[in-house]
């Protein structure tokens, strides 16, 4: 396989930008119309993702082992979209037709190399999908409670119909029946209750396609679809350092689950949670968080508001400002979750304060809605 030639060819093809995935999907759907129903109505975001994924794979085509973990995750992920073994050749044909269409020089050798590379990728994805075969491709979950709180935030309680094993800090993809094929990531905010149910904290993103439906239109009894739990960034390390947790808005969710876990295990690790919002109305789960922190001596909560004067135990300033004002955290593991802007700003402040990079764990949410 001439990998340099493949890379050169991809550079030529990719220079056509959005036209490439447009051509690919149209070819795929015309040749196999039944596949169209596996995709959402709007395809713009889907096309960008495909182009990025292809670029990532091709840039590693001479060392595909390096992208194996990514491909395995893709393979497992695609089970929830209903992708099965039979679909892979159809995609391969459409991909080759697309590459040929955008290439100035298309030779049988090039076609053979692309087919071989695609085959390798498909095998890795399929093997991972097969290995995950014992897990359902998705779960159904009934909404058993809807608690709409101030500032466009809803706390949903969801009971999966079969056990859904997740670690505190992991996320699950969620699909609402009224928005088919559109999946968004949310983090269970509690440990599973005795019936397996857990809380999801959903913030309404104005103009988003899924969160308005989740926050405003979800009713008790609605059945959601849930994907397999993923993510390791916010899963607690097994070290012994004490913890500094910094959350913005609904970025509280993973930390509520993690703190519940620490309380449940009677852990000796101390956890300080700095939870920030613009105003007190943004701190939508204060009562429950206070109650949780009273249940275990190793948990401490500092609510912070940036656009209002401090009052009572609510401190003034952004969460990271308040945390850095109060103490030196260089011997702590630090976890951050919030909007992309909040995570970026918080990370910069933490590193500037001398906290080693490998002790800072980040996860950003929010772009998934604004980006569609």
């Amino acid at each position: 396989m001439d990998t340099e030639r493949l890379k050169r060819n991809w550079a030529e093809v990719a220079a056509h930008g959005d036209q490439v995935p447009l051509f690919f999907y149209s070819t795929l759907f015309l040749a196999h119309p039944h596949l169209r129903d596996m995709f959402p109505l709007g395809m713009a975001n889907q096309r960008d993702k495909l182009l990025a994924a292809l670029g990532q794979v091709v840039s590693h085509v001479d060392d595909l082992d390096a992208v194996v973990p990514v491909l395995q995750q893709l393979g497992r992920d695609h089970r929830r979209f209903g992708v099965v073994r039979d679909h892979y050749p159809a995609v391969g044909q459409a991909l080759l037709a697309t590459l040929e269409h955008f290439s100035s020089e298309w030779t049988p050798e090039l076609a053979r190399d692309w087919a071989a590379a695609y085959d390798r990728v498909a095998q890795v994805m399929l093997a991972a999908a097969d290995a995950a075969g014992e897990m359902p491709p998705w779960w159904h979950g009934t909404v058993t409670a809807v608690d709409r709180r101030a500032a466009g935030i809803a706390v949903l309680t969801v009971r999966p119909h079969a056990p859904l094993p997740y670690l505190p800090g992991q996320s699950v993809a969620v699909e609402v029946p009224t928005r088919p094929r559109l999946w968004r990531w949310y983090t269970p905010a509690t440990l599973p209750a005795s019936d397996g149910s857990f809380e999801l904290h959903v913030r309404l993103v104005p103009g988003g396609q899924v969160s308005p439906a989740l926050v405003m239109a979800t009713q008790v009894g609605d059945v959601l679809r849930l994907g397999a739990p993923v993510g390791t960034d916010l899963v607690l390390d097994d070290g012994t350092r004490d913890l500094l947790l910094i959350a913005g808005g609904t970025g509280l969710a993973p930390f509520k689950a993690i703190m519940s876990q620490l309380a449940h295990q009677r852990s000796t690790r101390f956890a300080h949670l700095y939870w920030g919002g613009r105003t007190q109305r943004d701190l939508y789960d204060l009562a429950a968080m206070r109650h949780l922190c009273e249940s275990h001596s190793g948990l401490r909560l500092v609510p912070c508001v940036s656009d209002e004067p401090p009052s009572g135990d609510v401190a003034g300033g952004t969460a990271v400002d308040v945390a850095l004002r109060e103490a030196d955290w260089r011997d702590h593991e630090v976890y951050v979750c919030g909007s992309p802007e909040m995570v970026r700003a918080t990370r910069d402040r933490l590193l500037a304060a001398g906290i080693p990079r490998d002790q800072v764990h980040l996860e950003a949410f929010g772009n998934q809605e604004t980006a569609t």
Partner: protein
Amino acid sequence: MTDPSVGTPPQPTHRLTPERVRSMRFGRTPIGRRGLNEEEVAQFQERVAAELAERDAAEAALRAKVEHYKRSLIQWQREHSNDPYGEPATGGPAVVQPTVEAVNILSRAQQEADAYIAQTQQYCRQLADEAHAHAEQLLAEARAQAEQMLAEPMRLAKEAASVDVADLADLERRLTWARSFIASLEAVEAQLRTAREALAYEFDRAARVPAADRRAG
């Protein structure tokens, strides 16, 4: 869930797509510094995205023409050669491929659907932002009004504390005043709640539009 914009710089080789133009969000200027008119920025983004899509479609149409001429040429050559049943110029497996024209028609339809969805979302976002700003303003006004209304009885109450208790009737009158003030505050609150519910209803309706379109189509 990990956001690619955190930590990793954008790939320079990545050509701009309409979706990337539309989903670009700009940071807010620090308080006290004047920023751009968000509505104008959004309108411009939409225009750039539409022109990008237009350009993509035009290029696709040109390639379809080239493809068409190529096929015509091959056929002409075959018809005018001595061996009309010879091997076609391009080999490969006999997979039924849709024509480039068909592919382009479907692509165009998809691009239009994407643009409609993007415009609807932008409209929802604008509506929500305006409603939010309006609500904040109402709250601020109500708060200022309440403070103003409270100032007078507070001053009188302070005086009353120092004055002889004999003026019980006056105190009674102030109490009635305070009660009617609280009642008017409750009325304002009820008004705000009604407005919020109406907004929520409108919002929900707007949020349902794409699903309804899908059913209708």
